């Protein structure tokens, strides 16, 4: 109820990103993820962030889609940046009579840039793709793996259920956190935190159990919906995506 998490939530629209099929977008996403993971240069990070921002504009998604990070997370990031600054390293800048090493904090900022960039790409996929279209796309992409004995049916079934479970589990976590605030003040915060986490874990396990029963009921190899034909929007996304992947993978300065 009070969750502000918008993972894999579709925003209705008619943009080229919406009209492109899930297969094309997932392929580009995979390319960008691999490119950025193996070449996390500042240019690559900038290209991925730019892709997300341009995607939001082209998709006419509006700034409201961007999640608002919880304050404790922002505080934790702030503290970690202070430690990054204290760790020093090249390059150095002169502040008054002393030299300050920026190597640690720059490395950390790049790590955040990579992490948030990958998260942003995933969110962009979710905002412009109906979650029901993802399992058929994954099925098509993973088809070659079935020839080498990979149990793709199980993987797709698990993916389908995980996508459906995500909002439920997020809602459960938010509810448990809200309930923890009803306790009287005082007592060990660590104990309270552990109690919240254990209850959230129990709730998640129960959800998983329900989904396990669903798998038992319908079987692992339930038919996955057929994917639509390739269209012009797919072509545009694939061409632009290939260029972006090239930039990200080959950009200098890693």
């Amino acid at each position, binding site marked *: 109820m009070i969750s502000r998490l918008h993972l894999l939530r579709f925003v*209705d629209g008619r943009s080229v990103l919406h009209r492109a099929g899930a297969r094309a977008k997932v392929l580009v996403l995979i390319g960008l993820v691999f490119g950025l993971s193996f070449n996390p240069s500042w240019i690559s990070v900038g290209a991925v962030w730019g892709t997300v921002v341009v995607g939001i504009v082209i998709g006419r998604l509006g700034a409201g889609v961007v999640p608002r990070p919880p304050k404790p997370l922002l505080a934790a990031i702030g503290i970690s940046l202070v430690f990054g600054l204290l760790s020093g390293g090249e390059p150095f800048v002169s502040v008054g009579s002393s030299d300050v090493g920026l190597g640690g904090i720059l490395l950390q900022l790049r790590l955040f840039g990579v992490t948030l960039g990958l998260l942003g790409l995933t969110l962009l996929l979710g905002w412009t793709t109906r979650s029901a279209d993802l399992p058929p796309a994954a099925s098509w992409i993973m088809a070659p793996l079935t020839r080498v004995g990979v149990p793709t049916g199980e993987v797709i079934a698990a993916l389908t259920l995980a996508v459906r479970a995500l909002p439920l589990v997020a809602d*459960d976590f938010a509810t*448990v956190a809200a*309930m923890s605030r009803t*306790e*009287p003040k005082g007592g060990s915060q660590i104990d309270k935190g552990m*109690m919240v986490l254990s*209850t959230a874990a129990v*709730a998640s396990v129960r959800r998983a159990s329900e989904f396990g029963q669903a798998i038992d009921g319908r079987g692992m190899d339930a038919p996955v919906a057929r994917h639509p034909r390739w269209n012009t929007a797919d072509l545009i996304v694939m061409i632009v995506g290939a260029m972006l992947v090239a930039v990200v993978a080959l950009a200098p300065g890693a």
Partner: protein
Amino acid sequence: MIELQQVGYVHDDDSPWASRALDGISLSIQRGERVLVTGPNGSGKSTLAWVLAGHVAPTEGKAFIDGSPATESVTTTGLLLQHTRLQILAPTVAAEATRYNIDADVHRRSLHALGFDDSILPRKIDEMSLGQQRRVALAGLFARNCPLLVLDEPLAGLDRKSVSQLHAAVDGLPPSTTVVTITHDIEASAPLGTRTITLADGRLVTDSG
């Protein structure tokens, strides 16, 4: 005691997924009143429960409890969730009482009123049925002596005997305790309230008070 002034609530406000749950609700509930809130699915009943219990602030209008914003009363207002398992954070029944510093004898009496005996105290919450979990949660809420109780679908999952026990337990609460019961089963819940508020599409459509 409770005062709602033009309360509205929009889930995921300022996002593409914004959806209105409450719209222009104004009402006042006096101390000790027993109120039923009913309406069809999606009419905003549970959101109203969360607003009354202070777990969310209205996105429009104001909600007060005893003159202060309802969100300031979140630790003294009791809320029974539909998904009861999520509100019992402790592993056993006895440990749940400890969480809220409830006197052991008061907790035991409350459990007895809802049909349990002392053998329930060491039981693990996860080994109980949904109906038992709901009664344990209710017993904990009643034992906390909250001035305001908001019960969201308290009869769900209860057998007839448990429903009767719940009616009697609510009757046994101090007269100053305000009880707001969210229900879609107005007939079975009738003994829990003397005033009925009906919601539809997030708006207050009838108020017998």
